[in-house]
């Protein structure tokens, strides 16, 4: 009995030692990969920061209205945020690469999914950035055109355009990420439809006289009056 116990214990210790001996080099390789990954990620961060500064990305971000949003959320500048993003994506990528060396079967699938998700995350970020840029540009263009045409509710028009383009960009982002795809699609459709329907009801039924008067003033007399108030500039 005693001998059996000793044999089993020895066997267990030997298995453990074998297992440890089997995993230790892999663990060391993983740590080395993680360390090298940290160095590379840090270098990528510096490179990204330099490129973004050289290309005056902060100005682009300011134009897009992203800087304002980040300030309100007490986040670092867009250049800093994007270079940090590069660092973390690169480092997490290396860590996961290291983890895959350990050969843990259960983790392999998640790691593969993460690497497949990265391009989509990048595309989503690009869409979000250009969506914000387009929303700011077109809302400002609408504001300027409306003010110069002496349109009464220019700010409202501008804000509406910004919101519509932002919602559109966000729905595209969620679609690319595959997060709550159908919910977002339905929500977008519902919000957009509701806005259009309420506008149609407000102008078509509720305020048809006001709408007629408004349109007549804007399209007929208003234009004429505006032009007459313009002295010849040249």
């Amino acid at each position, binding site marked *: 009995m005693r001998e059996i116990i000793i044999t089993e214990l020895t066997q267990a210790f030997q298995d453990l030692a074998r297992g440890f001996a089997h995993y230790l080099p892999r663990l060391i390789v993983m740590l080395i990969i993680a360390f090298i990954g940290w160095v590379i990620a840090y270098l990528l961060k510096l490179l990204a920061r330099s490129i973004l500064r050289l290309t005056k990305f902060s*100005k682009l971000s300011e*134009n897009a209205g992203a800087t304002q949003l980040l300030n309100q959320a007490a986040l670092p500048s867009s250049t800093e945020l994007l270079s940090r993003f590069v660092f973390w994506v690169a480092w997490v990528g290396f860590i996961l690469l290291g983890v895959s060396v350990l050969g843990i079967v259960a983790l392999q699938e998640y790691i593969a999914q993460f690497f497949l998700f990265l391009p989509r995350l990048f595309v989503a970020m690009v869409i979000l950035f250009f969506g914000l840029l387009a929303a700011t*540009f077109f809302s*400002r*263009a609408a*504001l*300027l*055109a*409306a*003010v*110069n045409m*002496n349109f009464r509710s*220019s*700010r409202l028009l501008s804000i509406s355009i910004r919101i519509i383009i932002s919602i559109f960009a966000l729905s595209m982002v969620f679609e690319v990420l595959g997060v709550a795809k159908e919910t977002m699609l339905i929500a977008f459709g519902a919000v957009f439809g509701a806005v259009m329907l309420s506008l149609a009801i407000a102008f078509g039924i509720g305020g048809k006289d006001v709408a007629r008067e408004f349109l007549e003033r804007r399209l007929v007399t208003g234009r*004429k*009056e505006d*032009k*007459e*108030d*313009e*002295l*010849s*500039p*040249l």
Partner: protein
Amino acid sequence: MAEETLLTDDFLRQLIHVGEVDILVGLRTHNNAKTIEPVIRAIQAGILKCFPRERSVIVNADGGSLDRTQELIVGASIDDVWSVSKVYALRTLHSISTRYAGSPEPGTALRTILAAADLLRAKACVVISPDSTTIEPDWLQRLIRPVYHDNFDLVCPIYSRQKFEGVLMQNLLYPMTRAIYGHRVREPYASEFAISGRLATDFLTRETWNDERTRIGAEICLTIAAITGNYRVCQSFLGPKAQPDRSASDLVAVMRRTVGALFTSLDSNFPLWSTIAGSQPVPTLGSQSEVMLEPVRVNRKRIREMFAIGVAELEPVLRSILSASTLSELQRIATLEVSEFNYPPDLWGKTVFEFAASYHKSVISRDHIVQALVPLYRGRTLTLLLENRDGSGEEIERKLESLCGDFERLKPYLLEVWADRK
């Protein structure tokens, strides 16, 4: 050469048929049938009367008129002019016309005319506006003679104007061009002008044509090119300027063509203009500008409202363009009633220079910067209307001179904000 691709085969054939000329008269048209006939008659009479021995051609660059403008120009017979003036030309006066490619654009039309002048080796090229219903045959002599006989390279016009016409010219284009480039050219964006063959050839090779912002305002770029290229520039008094159709003017488009082009020119010419201080007069032939005191009907209350709404609604846009002090001063002015409204000249100068610096730095889209200036310009227009309601010609001229002085004094401020926006 650029003209090889710019000019159509048919137009080239017409030019070859004409051969070398001494004087080329350019007409840029687009649906101008209503006004073109008296202009053509005056041009023909002017050539017959003042330059009967010179080889001359009328070149029309048309933007695709649908109202027979081109036919009217090419078909205008010189017989009627002969019978009236009793003077006969010793040379054939050709009239040719071409439809340039692309959408109607004065800049492309001008380029076509200059390319024709270059090909025909014209000694003088004069451009006349098809809307100039007040044109007299003598205008040609006044514009062409300084180039043809006195070796000037650019002759800009001076007109007698209604006191409230040409507001942008008098409140921004003239004072700013004068302060920046140091030459007192009253009409830097001219609808009628004459240039020498060598300036035309040189100007054709400039970068102006490659950038849409400068191409649409080629007239002001031509004046700036002549000044910065040390060409000989003078002014010639023509007479009353035709009253433009107020309902046809699009202020935003005008601002793009003029102010946009002027602001753009500052980028490439910085080494030149940054060293210029003060200004010098340019030789002027004939009378200085004259002001006609006919009353004008404008709704002042409405202009004030457009200014106030503009300042309020565009606050986030103006905040990225103007300094905090200028913006708060504008916001204060926007609260004033018409009776006490005053947008002072020094603040207007500061505003314009801050816009120019922001345009240089592209703090937002450059086109948006130009558009944001429109409501502020309206505010300045209102001040002008109120200040000069009962003013005589001399008083108006004195105030204009004072405004120009303010722009010149503020030039160091422009250099400061140019280097580092406040």
